[in-house]
């Protein structure tokens, strides 16, 4: 089952912060976050694993509440390069990574 993301879209000025939420109705093993720019492939940002281990390489942070089956992605001091559509992907230990409908982020100068 697909996770639910909110909001659908957000517009920011450079330097502002934003939070993107992702919730699932099933127990989760991991939550992935990806960013896709128009006409390009989704790019891996971060993975959060059950048990609290976080693996990523971007200066963007995230949290994972296993009990509530929710995750949030935090965009801090946004830059123009943060513009794109952000997808959360959830996986329940069954090798099926399901994606939400996405959150479109527009950062303006």
């Amino acid at each position: 089952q697909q996770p639910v993301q909110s909001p659908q879209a957000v517009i920011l000025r450079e330097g502002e912060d934003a939070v993107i939420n992702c919730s699932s109705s099933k127990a989760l093993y991991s939550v992935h976050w990806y960013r896709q720019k128009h006409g390009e492939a989704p790019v891996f940002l971060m993975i959060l694993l059950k048990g609290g281990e976080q693996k990523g390489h971007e200066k963007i942070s995230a949290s994972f509440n296993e009990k509530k089956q929710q995750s949030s992605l935090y965009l801090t001091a946004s830059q123009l390069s943060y513009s794109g559509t952000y997808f959360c992907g959830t996986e329940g230990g069954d090798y099926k990574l399901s994606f939400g409908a996405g959150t479109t982020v527009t950062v303006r100068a």
Partner: protein
Amino acid sequence: DAGVTQSPTHLIKTRGQQVTLRCSPKSGHDTVSWYQQALGQGPQFIFQYYEEEERQRGNFPDRFSGHQYPNYSSELNVNALLLGDSALYLCASSLVGGDYGYTFGSGTRLTVV
């Protein structure tokens, strides 16, 4: 270090025809997943291959089938194409378990007319 390579980049087919899409995973990755992405939507999981076997499948009809070769490359086959099959098809590779994330290819844009 090459990432995920997909071919062809664009394809136009007629209803009822069959199509084969190809994917070479990132070096070192052994697992390949296929996704269908409609315009403005999130990627929809089709299936995942590991050790040349389909390990998991999404809610797609049997018209969608795949294969993984010993060198980990993969194919997605779609038979009896419908207009609704028009979409971007993404291939993603990962290490078994996916605990280090997926690397996506740029996709194949399939148009069915």
